[in-house]
């Protein structure tokens, strides 16, 4: 009898060792954690959602939101972060993450409203929100506040960086379209050299000069038809060079704006938008 009992226990333990409940919440969570740490976020989110259908766990909700943010689905990230309750230990982090999602979607009035709410709250991330908000001001067309007020939330190296950005925003190194046109009117190509298009400037000078010379020599050698053709072409290059210099100044200024915006965006990306970093995969 006891032998039979022992045999059954042994057999069942052998069988159990090969059995896995794949659909158990624990195993789903283990697998989801593995996927999350493997950066397979979309699959991890699906698994975590299955887990949440059984257990209500704010850390899992937060991880889902972080996952959506990682795959740049900011709209879903925002929804998930906003569902974190006030009683949760992740609540404060979720608020700053929501602000980051809004920033990454669009810098508009809703974004600034949320930023101000967070700045004026008792959150430990109020200063983070303040820094993100002020940095974002560099990317919109509106006037900046006074420099002193602008730099309030920043310290040390960040303060230097933001100070430089502030100065650049207020006084960008634009080229004057008017002066570009005038320089090219006086000396063909000079306007383009002013806007740092050195090759184009020299070419404009050569072409205008060449056709002016050809026109002159043909008039001098009594070939009026050819002379007038060269005059017309030369005049075209001359007028085109003035026009092109003005356009070149505009393009130069557009490049200044582009480089500035990219510089600010890169700075914010490096700072992780002043949001904390998480290490769920220790």
């Amino acid at each position: 009898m006891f032998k039979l009992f022992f045999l059954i226990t042994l057999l069942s333990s052998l069988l159990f060792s090969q059995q896995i409940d794949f659909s158990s919440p624990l195993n789903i969570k283990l697998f989801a954690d593995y996927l999350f740490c493997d950066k397979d976020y979309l699959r991890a989110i699906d698994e975590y959602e299955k887990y949440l259908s059984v257990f209500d766990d704010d850390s899992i909700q937060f991880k889902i939101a972080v996952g959506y943010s990682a795959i740049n689905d900011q709209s879903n990230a925002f929804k998930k972060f906003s569902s974190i309750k006030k009683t949760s230990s992740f609540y404060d982090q979720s608020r700053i993450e929501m602000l980051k999602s809004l920033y990454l979607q669009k810098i508009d009035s809703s974004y600034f409203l949320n930023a101000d709410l967070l700045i004026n709250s008792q959150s430990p991330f109020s200063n983070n929100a303040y820094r993100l908000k002020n940095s974002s001001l560099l990317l919109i067309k509106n006037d900046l506040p006074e420099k002193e007020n602008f730099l309030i939330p920043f310290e040390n190296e960040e303060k230097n960086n933001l100070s430089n950005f502030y100065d650049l925003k207020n006084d960008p190194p634009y080229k004057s379209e008017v002066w570009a046109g005038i320089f090219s009117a006086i000396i063909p190509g000079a306007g383009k050299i002013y806007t740092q298009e050195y090759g184009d400037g020299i070419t404009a000078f050569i072409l205008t000069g060449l056709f002016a010379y050809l026109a002159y020599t043909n008039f001098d050698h009594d070939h009026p038809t050819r002379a007038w053709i060269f005059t017309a072409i030369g005049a075209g290059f001359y007028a085109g060079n003035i026009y092109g210099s003005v356009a070149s100044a505009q393009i130069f200024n557009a490049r200044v704006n582009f480089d500035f915006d990219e510089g600010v965006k890169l700075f914010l990306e490096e700072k992780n938008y002043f949001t904390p970093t998480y290490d769920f995969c220790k």
Partner: protein
Amino acid sequence: MTFVNKNLLLLIIVLTSSLVAQSTLQQQFDFAKKLFTQEKYFDAITEFKRLQFFDNENQFSFQSNLLIGKSYKAGAKYDESIKYFVLSEMDAASDEEYFKAKIFNARTNILRRTTKQAERILNDLLIDQRFKSNEKEIKYWIGWSYIFSDDWEKAYEIFNENNLDTALASLCELVDQEKYSVNFAKYSSYLIPGFGQFYTGEYLSGAISLGWNILFGYLTINAFVEDRIFDAIIIGNFLWLRFYSGNIQNAEKFAVQKNLEISNKALEYLQYSFMGERP
């Protein structure tokens, strides 16, 4: 006795019922494979990954990696596919398994158009004595690799060898014969401007090209004869040379374009109408 029997029965019932809720790794594998068969590739990969996560002894490593690779291949995610085929290769427990992984790796490289890599893999298999019996299959995929690298002549030679695949051999032969010689088009246009265009059936373009070359050639030579050297240089350099080099460019371009059309027609047939095995 009866009391003990009843307890035994109870124990058996409890054990059995808890077993029902659980699955074996084999069942998980079967479930994942079912999703693969149903072409739900994204979900199939999820389930294979789940299997792998819990398969501590790597019993299903080869099969799961192979099927993940095949799933990615079906979704045209060739880079990921190749990675999993390489993993399955490393987990291969037998020559047969190793061969299978290698062949799928080669086929994916063909689809990805990294045909040099495909050829290297297939040539390595060809010289491997373990796979002498698979020579036909290896050569079949070498042929496909040549098709995808647009070398129809070599593809024909492979498929024609020992009648490996007569349908593909005749298709490749036809394509190779229909194609224009790009070098002939180009070099004939060096000799007679417009000839390359005529050769590829672009008669109007050839005629216009020939006309311009005759005109500016005449004007250039005439200017030299009349001792108007400067005019001759200007006309020769900015007009005649321009149309002459344009003629050669066009001759080559039309030949390449026409050849591309011929290749693409054959590739379209192979993709949608060919009944044999495709990469």
